[in-house]
């Protein structure tokens, strides 16, 4: 793809499904998921990489959906909160969030769930300090974070208990 173009044909796997679309180069991955695929669980807050509401996974790693163009995900495997819910990968986290009241308006929740799942993969038994540090890139304006940290800590402990 050498000559610059404003519209690009892309093919990628989203939540296990192969999709093919023609997209404007300027379209962010988050906008692509929301408007082209109607996966509106990925939220757009600040659109400059600060709030973390648009967090999705690309090839297994969390990224900001607003700081990557859809065209850059060409050929990649993308997972959103819808896919991770359906596969039940984040079921425990979701239940813990409900149990501890770790959300109020819920706008930040999809991004936080995906980041938290990534945290528990990288650091299986994190301290509260490590949870706060890892989630420092995900803003929540409702809860004050306390309950979010509680929920993630509870899941980490439950998983560690089972692993023993």
């Amino acid at each position, binding site marked *: 793809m050498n000559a610059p173009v404003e519209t690009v044909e892309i093919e990628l796997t989203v939540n296990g499904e192969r999709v093919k679309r023609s997209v404007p180069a300027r379209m962010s991955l988050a906008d692509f998921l929301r408007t082209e695929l109607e996966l509106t669980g990925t939220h757009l807050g600040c659109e400059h990489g600060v709030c973390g509401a648009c967090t999705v996974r690309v090839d297994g790693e969390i990224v900001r959906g607003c700081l*990557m163009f859809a065209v*850059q995900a060409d050929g990649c495997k993308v997972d959103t909160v819808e896919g991770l819910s359906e596969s039940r990968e984040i079921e425990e986290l979701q239940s813990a969030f409900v149990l501890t009241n770790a959300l109020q308006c819920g706008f930040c929740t999809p991004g936080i769930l995906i980041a938290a799942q990534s945290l528990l993969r990288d650091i299986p038994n994190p301290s509260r300090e490590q949870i706060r540090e890892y989630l420092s*890139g995900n803003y929540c304006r409702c809860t004050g974070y306390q309950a979010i940290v509680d929920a993630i800590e509870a899941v980490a402990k439950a998983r560690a208990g089972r692993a023993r």
Partner: protein
Amino acid sequence: MKAPRFAYARPASVAETLALLDRHKDDARVLAGGQSLVPMLNFRVAAPRVLVDINRIAALSGIRVTKTHVRIGALTRHVELERSPDVAKHLPLVAAAMPHIAHPAIRNRGTFGGSCALADPAAELPACALALEATFVIAGKKGERRVAAEDFFKGLYATALKPGELLVAAEFPLPKPGSKSAFGELARRQGDYAMVGIAAHRSTKLRAAFFGVGDRPEVIEADTVEGVLSKVETLAPRADLHASAAMKLHLAKVLAGRVLKELA
């Protein structure tokens, strides 16, 4: 907001990239990790006609240790530096800086070369490159040239890169046995840009690169910790949204005292 309209190119090699940059001149901008450039596009601070996406050029990625230096490819992601045993072993200063750079999702995309080429005065990696006396490798139409970190960072978001050139790597000399380093920064929140930061390395001399205190990182070199501390007063930080100039200078002194203690 959303990014303005642009045309997108995805070259497969450095040669193709240079040809595109040559063809489109000032209209083109290189897209690496995009963690600073895309916000700039979304804010409409930058509006290049052409974005040259170098993310698929494998030759620009990776960390290689030779007999004399550690070579870090420009497209190496922050997360790779963070997890690299070679970086931990040979460049502990860089390893210590990594957790301070933004957040995991940003570090998964952001690149070493992007951070250096942008030259944000509050960024960690340019200061590390200065403290460790790295050399930048730059590709251009006429071939490669090398520029010492000291001459690379010119000022506020300004580097020695000329139009049409591409930063391809940096070479960090292997530290001498017995050398030590220390890193620290003060930020309002974990992952924010530093209000004041220090990347310091002690080999034959002690080099401390202060960042967030001027248009570019300022190196203070001396034989001893006391020597560096006595010169912190010469820094001339400018006030920003978060702190007055006097407060920044105060923080620089406090942080220098804390960080350099490790090198005494």
